[in-house]
């Protein structure tokens, strides 16, 4: 197996952690895996992304130009990664912050109001797990239950009380992807970055 997924969005949207959860699960499932972060040049509120590569042989590059899948949480990330997903690949878009549909026809894409779904379950920042759930439905590299086991094992102690809602978020994301969940997109227009990122450090 070889799969590569890019998670991209504003810093603070849980982009990096979503990638880590996937990577944990891949490792627990016995695959080789790399997780590589990348930060945009903006000083704060800027973009961040991470690339997860999963394979069964020693992984060469931890970066890929054309990922099998991309999970994008804001418009700049959609603009950047939509053209790059390999034909036949998967693109999961956070429709809560993105107003346009992808234009590609040679890939599978999903617009998911991840923020609204998250807020149905708990805090808005669960949106990353919602999107991960949706991804795994569209690109079943690992069974959702493996992800859940890994998440339970690796969630930092101080967040353990949020475990249940994280698991729910995964489920709801997958459910939405399967068409089993209908959600109204409520938040209007503009993108709202989170505000907890310190300047890039030099």
């Amino acid at each position, binding site marked *: 197996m070889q799969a590569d997924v890019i998670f991209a969005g504003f810093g603070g949207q849980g982009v990096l952690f979503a990638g880590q959860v996937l990577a944990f699960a891949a490792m627990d499932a016995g695959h080789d895996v790399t997780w590589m972060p990348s930060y945009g040049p*903006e*000083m*704060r509120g800027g973009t961040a992304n991470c690339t997860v590569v999963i394979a069964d042989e020693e992984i060469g590059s931890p970066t890929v130009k054309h990922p099998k899948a991309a999970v994008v949480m804001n418009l700049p990330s959609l603009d950047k990664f939509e053209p790059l997903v390999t034909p036949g690949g998967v693109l999961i878009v956070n429709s809560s912050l993105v107003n346009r549909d992808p234009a590609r026809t040679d890939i599978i894409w999903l617009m998911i109001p991840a923020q609204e779904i998250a807020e149905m379950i708990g805090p808005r920042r669960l949106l990353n797990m919602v999107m991960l759930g949706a991804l795994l439905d569209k690109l079943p590299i690992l069974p959702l239950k493996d992800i859940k086991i890994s998440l339970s094992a690796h969630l930092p102690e101080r967040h353990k009380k949020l475990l249940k809602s994280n698991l729910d978020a995964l489920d709801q994301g997958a459910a939405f992807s399967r068409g089993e969940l209908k959600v109204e997109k409520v938040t209007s227009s503009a993108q709202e970055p989170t*505000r*907890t*990122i*310190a*300047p890039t*450090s*030099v």
Partner: protein
Amino acid sequence: MDNIMRTEVQTVYSRPPSLSQTPTHYCPGCTHGIAHRLIAEVLDEMDIREKTIGVAPVGCSVFAYNYFTFDWVEAAHGRAPAMATGIKRVLPDRFVFTYQGDGDLASIGMSEIMHVAGRGENITVIFINNAIFGMTGGQMAPTSLPGQKTTTSPNGRDVETMGYPLHMSEVLSRMDGAGYVVRRSLHDPKNIRLAKKAIRTAFETQKRGLGFSMVELLSTCNTNWGMTVQESLTWLEEHMIPMYPIQDFKVSSGLDGFKV
């Protein structure tokens, strides 16, 4: 008697011309921005924008130069005073100032700041003391308070092993080359007004050739202190000021009679 009062629109405040139109990258509520604004106001009031060269540090204010409309250079970490010395010595009629954080000035840049003070280098230093390394994500600074938790003092600063807070204004004011050394704070409007007066006086010190001038500004870092903006102001007031009193440490007699 017909008492008709005519009125007119007055501008009480508007963005000073020395500030550029670039939004800062600072975290919301970070008081670095206040310090920037005060510098700009002072330069504009003194009408010396076009004669001023700023020296930016390495720290959160590394991009300070983007937020002003006059010339800037960007120094190596801690070396802004040396760079400012180089500039001032070849251009003695320009106004040269450094803008430095506490990591920059009090940790790696200790030697350079001590020596510009000792030499009475005719430059101005704006020293932002936020008791932490902001830019690199909240490590302990020499100015961190005893017990303060940072990412490199995870159990709080233990003065026995990690050293005592450094009082840079107190120390620098002892150097014979110091013309004006004071500490101010940026946590409320009253103190901000006093801070501005101090900055004005510091540049006046430079104008009069009275030697080294420095305004230490107590500043917040809500992000790395792990607080809300409002909490950070309170923390500054309640914890930093007792350790770092707002005070004039050295005022050259050459400033006698100078009023802002």
